[in-house]
Every structure is written in C-alpha cells, then in structure tokens.
C-alpha cells in the first residue's frame, strides 16, 4: 500500500513539475509575461507560492525547497536589517568609525562601549572558560526587560482596564441599554478575574462564577476567531488574485 502511495506521489510530482514548466514556457513564449527581471520574479513568486501550498497535500521536495529558501532568505534579510538598522547607526557610526577611519568630524560616544561589550559577551559562550561572561548579558537583558515591562503592564493591563470599568450604572438617572452594557462589562470582568484566581478551588459559588467567566472568555474568543479567519481569507484571496492576474494574466473582473 505504501509503495503504491509512493508511486502516486512521484507521478503527482512529475505532473506538477511538467505543468509548472509548460505553463511558464507558454507564458514566456506567448509574450504574456515579459522576459525580464519582473517576469522572472513573478514566475519565481508563483512557483514558490504553489510549492508552499503543496504542503496541503503532504510534505514533498517542492515544499522542502521553498521552506529552505524561505528560511535562508529570511535569515539573510534579517542580517542585513540588523546591520543597517541597528549596528551601523547605533554602534559603527557613533563609535567604531572613529577607531577605523581618520578625519571623522565630531566625538565618539564612549558610553556605547558598555552595550558593545555586553553584546560581545554573548559570543563568549563558544569557549568553556569564558562562558560565564554571557550570563552578564542575559542578566542585563532579563533584568532590563522586566524593569521596563512591569510599569507598562501595570499601566496597560491594570489601570487602563480599571478606569473604563468604573462607569455609572444609571445613565442620567435612568436605566438604559447602556446600563445593561455596563453591567455586562462589570460582571464579565469580575467573573473572568475569578476564573484566573488560583488560591481557592473552583467549587461552590466561586466555581459558578468562574464558569460564567469561561463563558465570557469563549464568547470573546469566538468573536476573535471569526474576525481573524476573515482576515486570513482575505490573504488567501490576495494570493489567488496574484496567481490569476499577475502570473496567468487571467482577467477576473
């Protein structure tokens, strides 16, 4: 059975390759696509798109090629971004440039030696004797990260949430639809908070309120799910539009 499946896979692979070749030759020969960088770029993009979608069938050589290309290109781009967006403007220009070139106007910023050393300590991990130095960098990153994020968390996740929850239930002295909204908001917030209360077992009244909290959570997740799926659908449509109009030049209007 497995051998038969493998045979089918090979046939499908060959058909897929032949189709890709045939279609692209037709597109170039028929001058539907220009034989220049733009045309070749469109063809490569289309082949890579289809190769990645081929994963929906099963893992295959086309997907592996696209995957490795993707990882390699992604890594290459990030190295370039790190150099041009971080290392060059933040370290090379204000500090290292003065050491390696003459007649540079201005003064070097010697404070940058500290973060530069912390960065270099990360490479100390390659040697067993100097490995301990990398812990200084980690301590700085983790400590600094926690120090920066704690006030932000209190600001965004506690105070910013409390303030809008403290609304008068009666709007202009009367019970309106907005009052129901406020009660729902308040009961949702309190019941979800009780669900995330770990110090008491979720039984009795606490259990009932936390169950209500789960209901609120699931309603919110459902809405979020639907919203995101719609977003993903638009991405798919965008991709199909690219394949049909930009690659195959089929007018779908």
């Amino acid at each position, binding site marked *: 059975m497995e051998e038969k499946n493998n045979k089918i896979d090979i046939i499908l692979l060959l058909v897929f390759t032949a189709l890709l070749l045939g279609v692209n030759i037709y597109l170039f020969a028929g001058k539907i696509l220009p034989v220049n960088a733009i045309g070749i770029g469109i063809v490569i993009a289309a082949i890579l798109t289809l190769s990645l979608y081929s994963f929906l069938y099963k893992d295959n050589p086309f997907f592996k090629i696209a995957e490795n290309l993707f990882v390699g290109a992604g890594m290459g781009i990030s190295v370039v971004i790190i150099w041009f967006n971080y290392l060059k403007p933040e370290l090379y220009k204000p500090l290292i440039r003065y050491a390696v070139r003459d007649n540079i106007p201005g003064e070097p910023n010697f404070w940058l030696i500290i973060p530069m050393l912390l960065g270099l300590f990360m490479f100390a991990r390659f040697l067993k004797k100097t490995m301990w130095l990398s812990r200084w960098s980690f301590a700085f990153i983790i400590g600094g990260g926690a120090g920066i994020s704690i006030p932000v968390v209190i600001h965004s996740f506690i105070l910013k949430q409390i303030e809008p929850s403290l609304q008068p239930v009666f709007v202009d002295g009367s019970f309106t639809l907005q009052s129901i909204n406020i009660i729902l908001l308040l009961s949702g917030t309190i019941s979800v908070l009780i669900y*995330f209360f770990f110090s008491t*077992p979720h039984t009795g009244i606490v259990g009932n309120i936390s169950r209500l909290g789960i209901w609120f959570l699931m309603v919110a997740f459902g809405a979020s799910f639907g919203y995101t799926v719609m977003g993903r659908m638009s991405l798919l449509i965008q991709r199909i539009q690219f394949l049909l109009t930009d690659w195959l030049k089929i007018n779908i209007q």
Partner: protein
Amino acid sequence: MSSSRCIFIFLVILLIVFGLSRLGGTISFAQSNSQLLPLQGFTAFDTPNDVGDSVGLIWKVSENDREGVHYIVSTAPSQEGGGDGQWTKLDPILSTTCYKSDFPQYFGIDESNKLWHFYEVSVTTTTYFKLAITDGVNIVEFPSVVSATPKGNWFDTSKVNILVCVIFFSGLIMFFIRAARHNPNLFIRHIPGLDAIEETIGRATEMGKPILYLNGLHGMDSLSTIASISILSKVASKVANYDSQIKVPCYDPIVMSVCQEVIKEAYIAAGRPDAFKSDNIFFITNDQFAYAAAVEGMMMRDKPAANLYMGYYYAEALLLSETGAATGAMQIAGTDSITQLPFFITTCDYTLMGEELYASSAYLSREPLQLGSLKGQDVSKALIILILFIGSVLTTFGVTFLTNLFRTF
C-alpha cells in the same frame, strides 16, 4: 384726522424708531467694545512632566470668551522681538477651547482648572510671549510680555498612581514569597493542562519519538517567554528522567542560549548529563513565517509524539498547531496572546490561557519565589475585584474620587 396729520405722525414715529435703532446700534457697539475686557493672569512656565521640549501658557477665562473671539499668541526669542523686532504670531486659538481641565496629566483633576486657559507651545530655548484677544474688529493685548525656559523633568507626576501600584503589588508579592518560604505547601488550584504534560512525556517515551517544545516569538524580555522557559526546565527534567528526547527549535538566538542552559541544568539535576544533546536546541530564523514553515516541515518529517507551544505567538499559531494536529501529535499550548488563544483552543488537546501559563510554572516547581508571586497576584486580583465593585457603586452615586485615582495618562 387729516391725511397730512397721519403722514406727519407716521414720519415722527419713523424718526423715533430710526433714532432708537441708531441709539441701540451705538449701545450695541459700545457693548461689543466693553465685552473685550482686559486679559488677566497671563503666565508662562515650563511644561511639567515633559522632556523639556515645550512651555505652557495660562491665562484666566473671561467674559470675552465666545464664538468668533480668538486669542492670539505671539512669540519672540527676546523681549524686544525677533532680529527685526517682529513677533511671530501662532495660529489663533478659539476662545471657547484650550482649558487647563483638558490637560489633567499636567494639572490633575480640579474644578478650578476650568477657569483657566492653557496652551502648550513647542520650544527648546527661552522664549518670550505676548497674548492678545480679538473679535475680528477690536484687539486687546495683555499689558506685559512673559517668558519661560523649557526644562526636562526627572519625575512624571502623572504616573504617580503607577508607582504606587508597583510598590504596593511588589510589596504584596514579597510578603507572600516570605510566607511561601515558611510554608511551601500553599494551595494552588488544579490546572488540567499541566497533568497532561506528564502524559505527553510518557507517550513520547512509549512511542520512541521526540517532544517538540516551542517558546513562541518573543525574546527573553517577555514575561511569557520567561514563564515558558520555567516550564521547559520542568519538562526537560521529566524528559531526562524518562530517557526521552526533547527538541527546541528557537526563533530568537538569545532564547536559544537560555534554553540550552536550562535544559543542560535539568539533565545534570536529573543525573543524566550524558543524555543532553545541545544540537537538539537550535536556532532556525527570526523571520516569522520562515520559522513557521521550517517547524511545520519538522513536524511532518519527524512526527513528534507531542508538541508543546508555550510563550507568545502571532499569526503562525494556527499554522503550527493545525500541522501538529494533522500529524496526530498530542498538543498542549500555553499563551497570553489573546488573539491566538482561540486557535490553540480549537486545535490543541489542552490550552493554558493567559495567566494559567504563569501559574503553571509555579504549580510545577513549587518554588517559594513563584508560589509567593502567584499568591500575591491572587490577592491583587481580589483587591481589584473589590475596587471594581465599590468604584462602580460610588460612580453610580456620583462619587468619582476612586475613578480619578486610577486614571492614567
């Protein structure tokens, strides 16, 4: 009555009406003039709570303020004006706008703030200001020139409530850490997803296949990654005991280094340093979808027995967990990424939602530090519930004191 007499009376009435109307016009004109009263209390000062890139101007609200009346602020680098003695006029300010009460981040919440106008001007050096008011016809100027020098402030008073909360919550957590050191058996409710972790490791051991552990896309400065690493330590310890295998493909090189350290220590603590393979903890790329594609490929080729997704995820969450589900792996996720939780809930066997991720590391380790933190956070939550309840009741009855305490800028 003869018609000439009627005409005469009519003309007299006409004259009286015309005279009155002229008189009225004069009165009205005089009122218009008198309504542009002299300006009061014009002062310039360094804007509080800023980095030193602006100064503030205040002046008293007056009876002049109405539609069609504008204030005009003029600036110059010296009291005598600019190089040519000219003053630069800023955009006119409608007299019914720009109150101190619109800027509670600078002046707090006070009813008297409604009695003052406030205007912020972006400057970096000492600047001189003149103020005038105009209704389009008349102009009244404030008699003197004022000046201010912008300065950066070390302390942002609008964030005092955040500081108080940080100190209070930190104090609570430290108190409970002490309590946990004295009594490490503090109660934590059962978290179902965690029991499943042991089940997944057992399953992987029986199947002879690895466990795939992902830390999410955040770096080491993220709380969810720190919690994930903490759980990884416990999982690695169990994996070492069961003589199973764990693979950790990383998105961030620093996270990779930390993972290597943590897993190595877990293997050493379990008495199995020989079984530790640093090659199993590796960096892939820090490109989101390239990372997802690579991990998906690994899932399809290695067919891991279990996939554990702990940490913060973005759009790749569904791609990863859906592929994992397709391979038939047992999946446990834990994330505080609200937008991705629905996807994990639908595709994974167990999901640790939000704070459950943080609680899990305390539950697994029973370390006083983590237990105390969790208890402290629980008490904080109880207090927040109380504040919400009392605050809502008070606000309903028109008492806004508590709401103002929690206002942020």
